[in-house]
């Protein structure tokens, strides 16, 4: 009965997003999930949701769709308990990639594909869904919304939002397609390639073997590293690159910061691994892979090196918090926000010395209004509050303090599994957590994915006063 209620809602929500999106997803998911869900979707597809508040819509979609997405796990019996199924589904849709399936090779291949597709939808949804909603808001609200959403003001791809949307999703699909072809060319199975590609491009991180990425060829790992890095880049920027507008690349300072942070972290980790006694070539390759996976909050892992130096843990934790570029599919605080904060801090210190100096924060040669700086601060404060609150609840359900922090941060940033948590001596296996901890992590994933405000808005009393 519950299934019958949730599935049509999910289906109708898909249909509202635009026909191609919906049809593609419906078709692929039907093929993957099987006849049962397909019947449900088909029968109730006529139920359309009416015009509603965008916050309400965003949050309800993100809460209900994953619940619907949990059904395949239950129906096929891959996961026994409702909590596990919901966890897997939330983890997928929020592109977190934390899995409670102990052995992905033992479950039906359709489910593997479904897992990957949920991530792909989640990754795409993050970019597109919000933009689609923007259509309904008036112009002032639109600017406010987009500014808050992606950190600071950003150029739109095209004056028409629908054009921007279609460009974004085309580039997203294109990258996925290229990656699938490359992976197949590198000698992987078709299903494997598709799953991995979907997980990578969406920065999700579900893997198809119980051993993580250990069993794959070096070529595969190298390809994945490159694409993980790319998936941390702003999708709009990728489009500009694709259409050979190089000037955009040069003008986007965030990209250079991103590249610098990536190289610096990977380089220093490689040195740390090498100094710890691992072979140098392996250290370098592993660092590149690991750092790309962390900074894009993808969450793939391979066999960690025998000696895991401390610097690697520290760098990993910092990157988990920072995340990649704003407007990418990755999670975390986003470098653009951190850049703003850093520049503001520098100005602030100068003002302590010269109280009457007037400064402004500039990114890409454009002034960031004080109001946005305040919003970013507020966001970071809430982000930290969520991590602390999440960690507190995790300790209630029996985790140690350090693991609780790492787990809360990793899931808030939609990273999922990370060797960091292992290096603290805790288990990487999310399946062993008690149910309460799983629900906490789900809440964190959701909060991280929706960047908090949309989620908080609908639980705030003043929202409901407004509606009345």
């Amino acid at each position, binding site marked *: 009965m519950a299934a019958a209620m949730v599935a049509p809602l999910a289906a109708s929500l898909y249909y509202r997003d635009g026909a191609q999106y919906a049809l593609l997803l419906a078709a692929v998911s039907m093929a993957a999930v099987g006849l049962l869900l397909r019947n449900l979707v088909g029968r109730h597809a006529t139920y359309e949701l009416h015009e509603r508040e965008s916050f309400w819509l965003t949050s309800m979609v993100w809460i209900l769709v994953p619940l619907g997405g949990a059904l395949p796990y239950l129906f096929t019996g891959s996961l026994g308990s409702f909590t596990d199924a919901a966890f897997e589904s939330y983890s997928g849709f929020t592109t977190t990639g934390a899995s409670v399936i102990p052995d992905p090779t033992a479950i039906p291949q359709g489910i593997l594909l479904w897992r990957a597709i949920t991530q792909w939808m989640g990754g795409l949804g993050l970019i597109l869904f919000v933009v689609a909603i923007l259509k309904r808001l008036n112009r002032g609200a639109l600017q406010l919304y987009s500014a808050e959403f992606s950190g600071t003001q950003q150029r739109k791809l095209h004056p028409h939002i629908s054009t921007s949307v279609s460009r974004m999703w085309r580039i997203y699909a294109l990258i996925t397609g290229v990656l699938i072809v490359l992976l197949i060319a590198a000698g992987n199975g078709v299903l494997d390639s598709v799953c991995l590609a979907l997980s990578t491009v969406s920065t999700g991180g579900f893997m198809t073997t119980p051993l993580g990425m250990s069993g794959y060829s070096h070529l595969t790992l190298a390809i994945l590293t490159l694409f993980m890095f790319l998936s941390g880049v702003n999708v709009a920027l990728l489009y500009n690159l694709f259409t050979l507008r190089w000037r955009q690349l040069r003008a986007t300072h965030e990209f250079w910061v991103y590249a610098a942070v990536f190289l610096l972290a990977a380089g220093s980790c490689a040195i740390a691994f090498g100094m710890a006694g691992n072979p140098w070539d392996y250290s370098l390759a592993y660092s590149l892979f690991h750092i790309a996976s962390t900074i894009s909050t993808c969450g793939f892992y391979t066999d960690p090196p025998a000696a895991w130096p*401390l610097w690697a843990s520290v760098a990993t934790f910092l990157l988990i918090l920072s995340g990649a570029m704003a407007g990418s599919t990755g999670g975390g605080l986003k470098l653009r926000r951190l850049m703003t904060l850093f520049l503001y*801090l520098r100005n602030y210190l100068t003002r302590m010395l010269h109280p009457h100096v007037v400064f402004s924060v500039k990114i890409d040669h454009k002034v960031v209004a004080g109001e946005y700086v305040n919003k970013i*601060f507020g966001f970071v404060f*809430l982000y930290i509050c969520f991590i602390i609150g999440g960690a507190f609840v995790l300790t209630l359900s029996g985790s140690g*303090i350090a693991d609780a922090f790492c787990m809360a941060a990793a899931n808030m940033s939609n990273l999922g599994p990370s060797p960091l948590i292992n290096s*603290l001596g805790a288990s990487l296996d999310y399946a062993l957590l008690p149910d309460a901890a799983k629900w906490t992590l789900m809440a964190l994933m959701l909060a991280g994915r929706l960047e908090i405000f949309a989620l908080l808005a609908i639980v705030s009393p*003043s929202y409901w006063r*407004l509606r009345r």
Partner: protein
Amino acid sequence: MRNASDWKALLRFLGVILMAEGGLMGLCVVPAIHFADGTLWHIVACSAATLSVGGGLYYAFRNELEIKDRRMSYLLVTVLWLTLSAFATLPFLATGSTRSLTAAWFEAMSGVTSCGATVFADVASLPASVLLWRSMTQWFGGFGVVLLVLALTPRLGINKYSLYTAEASGADNTGKTSVRTTVTVRRTLAVYLSLTVVFIILLMLSGMQMWDAVNLTFTNISSGGFSVNSDSIASLTHTQQYLLAGAMLLSGVNFTLLFMLVTLRWRQIRHKVDQLTFYLIICALASAFVVLALHYHSGYCWSDALRLGTVQTLSALTTTGSVVGDYTQWWTPVVFLLLMLGICGGMAGSTSGGLKVMRVLILWRNARGILRKRLHPNAVDPVRLNGRPVSGHIINNVLVIFMVFGATLMFGVMMLMLSGVNATEAIGASVGCLTGYGPGLGASGGFGCYAHFTASALWVCSLLMLLGRLECMTVIILFLHRFWHR
């Protein structure tokens, strides 16, 4: 920074402070004589050395009266604490309490920043004079030597206001009891002194020896947390523990507010009523949670749960760091909560460390305001405190300090882990030192000490204490290129 007269004025100021420190050090001869612990001449020598350096500086630069450059007052505060700490190491080294300079520096810094982390596993075996010196560093450190000296400033002629803001770089510039800083400082000092005396008397009335009463009052009223016993305050009677909890509670309240309360100026309380309410609410809620957890989860009987819960919660919230029971063995969420309370801290303008209740309140209301703004984009709804709108400048101030505090905390954890401390202990020590709580987690928490830390870890901890006490910005600004070059 090329103005020589500013430098001279700075040195002169240091001289005055050092003379004060030397004088207080001299007071430690009293227990040395009374308990005949054989450290009399060591203490006299240390005191004389400090006094003569201070006197020398003062005499050499006696004509340089005023610091004009704003930058100099930032520098002064940092240099002041470093110097104080440097001279405070003398008694530890001279009496042979420790042979390592690192350990002595750590202990001295922990004293003057009223942190309360200790490297001595068995403090009871230390000479009485050194014990009193530890308590005394906390007592004057906790109050802020700057404020102490400001009481005498009419003659020192330092630009008082800029110095005051440099140390208490909080948002709370509205809370002066009087327009004149000097009067504020005198009143604050009066409150502090009378609190000290009252609690010494109360503790003695409850049957404590004068020696313990003096030491414990010094360390608890300053939210420091050193003790003369190895088990901190666990072996005291229940009444005495509750009394000390009262001292801690008061030490977390803004001193100006205390002055108003004592002198029955009820009307002026409204300027701080929000912070006070919030502080008391946090106290009540956190204590209630800890007490319930201790009773239902850890199985303590009600009276023990009540005592351990309230005393330890207050100790954490006011960042005192006195330990009434080995909290590291308690339920993990309780430990977690205690850490978070330490980060929250007491009220601004009190001796406690941490972020301060008022900042947390502003942060919270600002976040709520942003949320509301999203729902009602055209509403004018400023952040209010005590019924008055808070200016954007102050909000940004608070936000910046929060960020920097958080970043410093993470930096501390990172550096401690790199110096070979395990993750849990690194988190505990970083919180403990930065907030001024003192004991952390694991072997360095509870009744434990920092003796097993490597030298580099101890230096990191000392740095964190300094940063925490001076609220980060004052120290960090010194690393700004523009600070040294125009």
